[in-house]
Each structure stands twice: as structure tokens, then as C-alpha cells.
């Protein structure tokens, strides 16, 4: 009887521990996922602000300011990719970096020749929002 009570006690504690671990790990995953989403939103805002700053029709192209911003973007993307806890999300972040690189190359080419139009800026922002929405599974 005593040995049965002890076995039940151990079993109950084991079950409680397993439940606690499961609940805690779920909470951590949700918390990390939220943090990861926030990082992606931060990259989206950076890229939209970048387009707003440099895709302005008629604005004189400032190569130095442009390069500073691109370097800032590169560092930001690199940091987010390195710190990403979900390894499955890294390829998505690399795709987003590819979008940023493509935007920067096209924008430099157009802005340096004074060939930015309002439609170009609008369509670029539309594409950025679309690719980030897809990255976030929306």
C-alpha cells in the first residue's frame, strides 16, 4: 500500500513536470514568434522609409546619404538574420534581404539619373508590403 502511494506520488509529480515543461515551452515559442514578427515589421518600416526618402521625383540624388542608408539597412538585416531563433525563418529573411538589395540597386539607378516617377515609388512600396505580408504568412 505504501509502495503504491509512493509510486502514485512519483507518477503524479512526473506528469505535473511534463505539463509544466509543455506549457512553458509553448509560451516561449509564442513569445519568440511575436518577437520575430516584430523584427520583420521593423525591417518593413525601415524599407518603406528608405523608399520614401529616396524615391522622390525631382529630388537631387545624394549618393553619400544613400550609401549610409543602404549600409544601415545591410547591418540591420544581418543582425536580424543572425539573431533569428527560428532557423526555418532564416531563408525568408534572406529573401527579404534580396528584395532590399534589388530595391536599393533599382532606386540608385533611377534616382541618380533623375528618373523617379510617383508611380515608381507607389509600386515599389506596394511590392514591399506584399513581400513582407507573405513573409509573415498573411
Amino acid at each position, binding site marked *: 500500500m505504501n509502495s503504491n502511494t509512493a509510486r502514485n506520488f512519483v507518477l503524479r509529480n512526473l506528469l505535473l513536470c511534463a505539463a509544466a515543461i509543455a506549457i512553458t515551452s509553448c509560451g516561449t515559442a509564442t513569445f519568440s514568434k511575436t518577437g520575430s514578427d516584430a523584427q520583420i515589421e521593423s525591417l518593413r518600416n525601415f524599407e518603406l522609409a528608405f523608399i520614401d526618402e529616396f524615391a522622390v521625383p525631382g529630388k537631387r540624388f545624394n549618393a553619400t546619404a544613400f550609401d549610409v542608408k543602404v549600409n544601415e539597412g545591410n547591418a540591420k538585416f544581418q543582425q536580424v538574420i543572425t539573431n533569428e531563433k527560428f532557423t526555418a525563418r532564416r531563408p525568408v529573411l534572406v*529573401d527579404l534581404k*534580396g*528584395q532590399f538589395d*534589388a530595391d536599393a540597386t*533599382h532606386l540608385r*539607378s*533611377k534616382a541618380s539619373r533623375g*528618373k523617379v*516617377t*510617383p*508611380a*515608381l515609388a507607389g*509600386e515599389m512600396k*506596394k*511590392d514591399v508590403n*506584399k*513581400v513582407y505580408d*507573405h513573409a509573415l504568412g498573411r
Partner: protein
Amino acid sequence: MPSAGKTKHRKSSRKTSRKSSALDSALDQVTDESVAASMKEFQDLLAQAKGDTSELIRQNAQELEERLVLLKKRKIDKEDFDFFLENQKRDLRVFIDSQPAQSQERAEKLTLHILEIAATKVVPVLIMMI
């Protein structure tokens, strides 16, 4: 009275398909038979994509059409158009790869194939019209 109703109806239908009409009317001007056949194939595929059940396929077709109209109106140039086309392709490849094997061919036909026809056959025609 009936004629007023008719006008109202015509106005609203024109409003909903304004962009489609702008592109269609431009492409309908093509008289060369072999080119006209390509334009017809493109218009049919575009219409099919715009009515697809997949939101991404519909969205892709809508964006392509809008950008062709922007190109025709000279609001963007060919460099911009090619840039947006590459963006669309990059985005779509992920989508197609995520589809079940049996759906991939159809998804590709209604997305990447349409973009290819637009780039190689429709854009040169639109640029000639500018």
C-alpha cells in the same frame, strides 16, 4: 427614362473594368495576325488568372495588368516594368514551390507563364504604340 438607366448601368460597368478596358483596347488595335494571336492568348490567360480561386494568382494578374497600363501611359518606363516583373517572379516562385505537385503546372501557367508572355510579346507591342 429607360435610356437614363441604360447610361447609368454602362457607366458603372465601365468604372469596374476601367483598367482592363484600357489594356484590352490597346491590345485590340494590333492588326498583324501572328502578333494578334499572341495578344489574344495573353488576354485569355489574364482573364483566367483574374478569375482564379487563388488570391495570389488573382493579385499577380491584377498587378501585371496595372503595370502594363502604367507603362502604356508612360508613368513607369521599361526598366521599372522589368524590375517589378522580377519582383513578381521572385515572390511567385516561393508560392509555386509550396503548391502540391499536381497544382504546380497550372499555377505556373497562370503566373510565371503570363509574366513571360507579357515581357516578351506584350511589352514590345505597347512600347511601339507609345
